[in-house]
């Protein structure tokens, strides 16, 4: 049993950010411990609270499941970065956090637990979305619908 990614970690960039943060935290922790051993004095160790909520959530889940050290978590996250399915969702406007979470939630519940989603925007889509997965493209944009309905539009125009 391994922890799922929190909904706040949606894209590869988010995951990399968390990995870097945890890596940094781990290094800092390691250095602090060595320093404490050498100097035998109390050194200020960076608190978990200084980390982002995503990192805190991941560490909490990891500890709850008793899966081992922080390095293992980082290793696990790096594996996720490499092996998780990745999709690109292009929207007609910049996606806000709620929309991102909503779509990520649906994808993780229905497609894959730790799927990573990269959000992009293209205002020429006019609305709807385009989903890219590997070589597959699912175009559910308004633009596509308008183009598909062009024949009807031509018929209407010709009858005018």
């Amino acid at each position, binding site marked *: 049993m391994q922890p799922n990614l929190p909904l706040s970690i949606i894209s590869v960039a988010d995951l990399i950010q968390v990995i870097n943060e945890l890596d940094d935290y781990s290094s800092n922790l390691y250095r602090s411990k060595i320093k404490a051993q050498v100097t035998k004095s109390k050194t200020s160790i960076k608190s978990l609270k200084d980390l982002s909520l995503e990192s805190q959530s991941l560490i909490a889940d990891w500890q709850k499941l008793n899966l081992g050290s922080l390095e293992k978590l980082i290793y696990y996250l790096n594996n996720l970065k490499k092996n998780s*399915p990745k999709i690109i969702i292009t929207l007609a406007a910049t996606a806000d956090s709620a929309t991102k979470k909503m779509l990520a939630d649906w994808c993780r519940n229905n*497609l894959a637990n730790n799927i990573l989603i990269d959000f992009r925007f293209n205002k020429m889509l006019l609305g*709807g*979305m385009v*989903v890219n997965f590997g070589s597959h493209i699912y175009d559910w944009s308004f633009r596509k619908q*308008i*183009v598909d309905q062009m024949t009807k*539009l031509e018929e209407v125009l010709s009858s005018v």
Partner: protein
Amino acid sequence: MNIFLQIFIYCDVFVLGIISVFIIRHFKAHQHIKKTPVHHNPTSQNITIPHEVREHLIEQASQRLQKDLDAVIEKFNTQLLEITDSIGSLTKNHTEEIINKQLTEFNSQIKKYEENNFSSFKDIEEQAQTIKTSLENQIKQEIETKKQRLINYIDTSLSDTVMSIVFEALEHQVDLGSQSQYLLAKLEEHKEEFKNTVNNAA
């Protein structure tokens, strides 16, 4: 034709020769008759022939000569007519033969030319038909291509126009919040297909 003319002339010469021979013989015969009393009977010079007898003899001689000449002329005329007839018939036969031969050759040549012309006309017609068909096909194809290009151009232009109109209308009013239900509905609609794609890729 020259051969027949030559034959005709030769015949004429021949006939004239015959006539000349007759005339010369006749002339010599009369000359001999006149001379004989002079040479063989020299005493006859002294014979005096009365004027009436002499006149009568001359008259008789001239009549005989005239009769002989008439006979010769008649004979000559008859022969000339016969020769003319025979030459005419011969010429006619030869002419007919030559004309027939020429006509046959001419007909055969005409037939040959007709056949050649017919075959060449047929070839030309076939070639023209082939060229016509190929041109027709080419023109049809070109028209179809141009038509398709125009249709595509109109489609594209129309699409672009509609897009730009809609885009202008929506420019800053795209609300993803109001689209969220639509987005989820689309995902749900294609859920199985999408899931299969993701699983297959995994």
